[in-house]
């Protein structure tokens, strides 16, 4: 894994000696391929230039890391438990951040702020119980760490924290403890990361169907702690629908329900204090979650719409008829172009001929404006017959909104890109381009307005803040619900000529969030609040709501042992 960028060390975008973009490694479908369109897209979209490089610091300079503040008494008792720990600089730095732009940017420049003083690796629930007891006894600050994919500054160590900070890494708690085929549930340790969970369940013919974009690295415990959402939630549900039972260790003891009934009327659901608690109340150690037999058949698909408005209208209709496929996503025109730029070199003249023909058909024959059209990607799952039936239903609806089926390939590539797109930011950062995505959820009637206004706000703010090049400001609708949708914004710009690009970036993102809230969007659909969005919590959930959450925190963790200071 990279210490200052996204994902596996062997996988990354780079420009080869011929100046062509290439994705290295063997892990992804795009790995080892040349991407001929990327360079031109980067140059024309951002005004980036291969001559102007901003390389990252290659290795961690351990001397830049503050020596650990250790609580000797805690350490001594910890040693006696036999739980592995480390205060090695690299281990500590690795767990000191998520993947917000400012975090990665600082690492690339070799700047290290406050990092955990100690990392511990509990192996099971009981280990966690011991660690929490010791932390309470010796007043040590605990910060649970799962997959480290946070984008809300949740993993940042509060600079004002004077106690010893212990990062509790759950990665060793990664076993499936049992599978219950009668009830279709699995009992799993919370440190397991998404792709392992799916792989192991697949071996038994099952899946959870929970596939957040970060599933390669994010952990079950992290999903619970942030109220995660998966790409295929239309079939399988979001994390709150998937979870049957949770075990969490808090300073007051272990919280769990006494049974696994599928629904209860026993006062407010205590699971909802846990889900979204963002590591402020305790450590989730074990989760029972629903599983499903693996789908018999999967089919990708895509639809081209003449414009974004039509696309949104179609998604709304699909939601109204409650016939959304496992996944349906609508990209705006800029993202459509971006997706195009990421097409790998085609291997045969025939494919490129077909591509040309398709383009001709859509733009010339059907009269779609290449600067306005947008594309929806689809994923159907289930038994073969039903999938085909379902597919027809969705394409019929799309046709009513001027949508043209645009093939499985485009759809599949769209989803594949989900996993490699995060690598792309690192390439951008090599060439003066910084950016990030953020999300919201919004009622249907405001989807178009929020998309237009937030994108326009980003452009205007960049201009006002002195960004020299027009930014990339684009969005997509990634989930549909009965009463609204989840919208993702992508924003990146070329920062040449700016003295403090990260500050500019943060100001623009802040303004964009204000714009989202002003347009009736939520503070977050699934990324969570962390420390990045704390300032808007009160207006989001009201003062009474804040008081409720605070009083729970005060009861469960009066000494603020879980002191990451997220959320409240």
């Amino acid at each position, binding site marked *: 894994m990279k210490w200052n960028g996204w994902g596996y060390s062997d996988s990354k975008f780079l420009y080869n000696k011929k100046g062509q973009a290439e994705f290295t490694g063997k892990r992804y479908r795009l790995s080892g391929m040349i991407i001929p369109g990327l360079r031109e897209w980067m140059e024309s979209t951002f005004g980036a230039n291969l001559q102007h490089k901003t390389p990252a610091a290659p290795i961690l300079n351990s001397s830049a890391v503050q020596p650990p503040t250790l609580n000797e008494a805690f350490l001594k008792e910890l040693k006696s438990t036999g739980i592995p720990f480390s205060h090695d600089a690299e281990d500590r730095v690795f767990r000191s951040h998520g993947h917000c732009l400012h975090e990665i940017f600082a690492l690339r420049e070799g700047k290290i702020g406050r990092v955990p003083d100690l990392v511990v690796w509990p192996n099971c629930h009981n280990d966690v119980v011991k660690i929490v007891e010791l932390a309470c006894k010796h007043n040590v600050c605990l910060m649970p760490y799962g997959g480290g994919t946070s984008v809300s500054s949740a993993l940042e160590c509060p600079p004002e924290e004077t106690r010893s900070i212990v990062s509790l890494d759950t990665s060793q708690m990664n076993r499936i403890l049992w599978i219950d085929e009668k009830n279709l549930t699995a009992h799993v340790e919370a440190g397991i990361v998404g792709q392992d969970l799916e792989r192991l369940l697949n071996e038994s013919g099952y899946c959870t169907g929970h596939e957040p974009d970060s599933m390669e690295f994010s952990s079950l415990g992290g999903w619970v702690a942030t109220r995660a959402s998966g790409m295929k939630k239309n079939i399988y549900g979001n994390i709150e629908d998937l979870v049957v039972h949770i075990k969490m260790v808090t300073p007051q003891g272990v919280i769990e329900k006494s049974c696994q009934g599928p629904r209860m009327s026993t006062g407010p659901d205590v699971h909802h204090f846990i889900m979204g608690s963002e590591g402020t109340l305790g450590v989730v150690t074990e989760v029972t979650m629903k599983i499903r037999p693996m789908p018999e058949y999967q089919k990708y698909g895509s639809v081209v719409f003449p414009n974004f408005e039509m696309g949104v209208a179609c998604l709304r209709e699909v939601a109204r008829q409650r016939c959304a496929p496992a996944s349906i996503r609508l990209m705006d025109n800029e993202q459509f172009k971006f997706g195009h730029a990421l097409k790998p070199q085609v291997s045969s003249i025939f494919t490129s001929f077909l591509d040309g023909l398709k383009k001709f058909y859509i733009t010339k024959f059907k009269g779609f404006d290449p600067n306005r059209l947008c594309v929806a990607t689809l994923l159907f799952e289930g038994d073969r017959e039903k999938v085909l039936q379902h597919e027809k239903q969705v394409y019929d609806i799309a046709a009513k909104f001027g949508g043209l089926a645009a093939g499985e390939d485009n759809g599949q590539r769209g989803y594949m890109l989900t996993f490699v797109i995060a690598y792309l930011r690192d390439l951008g950062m090599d060439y003066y381009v910084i950016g990030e995505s953020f999300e919201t959820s919004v009622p249907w*009637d*405001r989807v178009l*307005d*929020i998309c*237009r*206004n937030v994108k*326009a*706000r980003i452009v205007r703010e960049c201009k006002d803040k002195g960004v020299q090049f027009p930014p990339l400001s684009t969005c997509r609708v990634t989930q549909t619900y009965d009463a609204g949708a989840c919208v993702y914004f992508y924003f990146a710009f070329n920062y040449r000529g700016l003295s403090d690009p990260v500050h500019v970036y943060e100001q623009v993102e802040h303004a964009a969030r204000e714009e989202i*809230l*002003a*347009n*009736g969007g939520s503070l977050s659909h699934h990324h969570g609040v962390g420390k990045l969005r704390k300032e808007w919590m009160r*207006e989001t959930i009201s003062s009474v709501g804040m008081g409720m959450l605070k009083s729970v925190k005060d009861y469960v963790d009066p000494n603020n042992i879980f002191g990451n200071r997220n959320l409240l």
Partner: protein
Amino acid sequence: HGKIKRYQPKHQEQNCGEEFTDILEERRRTTDLGYALRTFNPQPYKGAPTLSTSDLNKAVLESQYLCYIIKEIAMETGSSVEKVKEDASRILKEMSHNLQLGFIRLMGYTLNKVFKRLYRSIYVNMEGLNMLQQAIQESPVILIPNHRSYVDFLIISYILFTYDIPVPVIAAGIHVAIIGGLLRRSGAFYIRRAIGSDKLYWAVLLEYVQTIVRTGYAPLEFYVEGFRSRTLKSLVPKLGMMDMVLEPYFKGEVFDITLVPISISYDRVLEESLLALELLGVPRPKESITGLFKASGVLQEDYGCMHVNFGRPLSARQLCEGKINWSEYNLIPRNLPQRPTAETQDCVNWLAHLIVRTQEEGSLISPWSLMACLLLQTPFTTLTEEGLQWHQLTEKTLWLRKLVLDFGARLNWPDSEVMSSTVALHHSIVHHKEDRIYLVQDEDPARQDPLSPEEGVMRMAVVVLMLVSYRNQALHVFVRPGILATVGLQILSLMNGHILFSCDPFFCSQMSSSDFEEACSLLQKCGAVHISQQEVIVLETGLEVLSFLQKLLQPFLDSYQLMFRYLCEKEDHVFTEEQFLPDVRNLATKLILSGDLCTFEVLSSDTQKNVLSALRRLEAVTKLRVSQQKEYKVNKAAVSRTGDILCKFICDIPVTIKFFLCVLRIIIYFTLLSLNILIIKCLYCG
């Protein structure tokens, strides 16, 4: 929250720095027909579809909002939805514009002919036009001109057509059929004058206006002052349209709305005498075909130049930043009617005033306005009998020119000959004979018997009120320092030269508003006062300025006193407006004849109505809702108290600072109401 934004006087370049282009010049060189048939290919708001009249009307009728209201009305009244829908459709038919390019061309052709005849030049600032062109492509644009003459109704459309910019749809008051139909095809849509509580009408209007704004396919033009100003000074803005137009932005339906204030200034106003007659209570002629023909007589006259100054486009988003609580719009479906919160209303109100203020700043002061200020400060006998010496007038005008420039106003002063040419232009008001200036008093040759003294006063009043309206064109430049000067001079005479406006808390909270600061800084700039950290000291060298300013406002104070006196002396406590206006007029005429009153301005229904509404706000007069006629009840004690304060003050009785502040407040309150300035509200609350 609700705090008034600090006004920062801008350093504006004078006339010379501004690039005005005479758009008639080219028209005189080419044929009218060629002009009318030119290719017209404007660039609209990006991504905006062209919307035909029928599509627009259909979108309005089918909108969720209107359907909701229709259902609601059907429920309330017990009539069928279809019936209400028909009513809505009828209202829409009466309202909607029918903009057609063919008629725009016809209009262009006709206006070409008319303008070339009426005006020497029509000056337009090209920079403003360029900014407008840019703005139109970025967001929906609202054009907000001032309205001083019927002539300017289509001037904006004419200019935009000339420069290939999308022509606007224009909100207009109900007109009669034939002209109405023509204007409709040139983009006018009609709003009834008195809508009252007609829920359906409001709903149709709201949806109609907002659909235009949301789609942004054409700029929307409306008069924030609501009416054509009869007195040539700005009116208190109406908020209804402003509210409607801004709501799509408040609801996030558009990213931004661009407001473009436009200042139209005339050397000479076409309907100058009609306006004066109207203010004196002579009913205005109906706008009809015959009226139009009669108007053709005026086509023979010279009206000098017209200036159309397109203001810098203002972003509603920027202006409203921090003033609007958006979440109020987040919990109710947007197609449902929603009353704006007090916060939002304050913001709209503030914006509307800002627009008027910007229009004022953008208008060009003509030399004639300066002369009008001075002529009105000259004793009437001088003007009517011995005449005012030409060199006296020109010297003083040049002095005033400098003052106006110091105050940062825009002045239309092409060359040194302008003073004599402007006097010639205004031969309907003054004539220049043997180096002296006289007011015009035309003798009606057809008339046998001599005029009665009352008729003589009225005759005189017509000319004087014409002069007054030209003075009013410049009044906004002087009003803030004027108020300060009126007060300052009094105090100066009381305290031997050294007085200070101490920074007591009351003073700060009431007057720290930008208007006071602006007044101080302007007076300092022209050397009339010295301002240090804590105090404002009136300088003796500034006496000329201060006395000019004071005399400028004196007619207002005199008029108020007269009306207070009338109200206090009348027997009855209840009166109607119909009764009030002629009674005051008669009393004033009597006093003018006896020499006890030396202003004619009190004869103007505008002044009279302003006092009524000021007193209503002070609750010295209350409106009774008993009949169709507007009836009022007067609280004599309150009126006489207000009058006493003004009177004592004027009569140089020693006063305390507190009393002085109280007076200041009342004077400001009254003067401002009639002159339309922002701080009324904050003063009133105090």
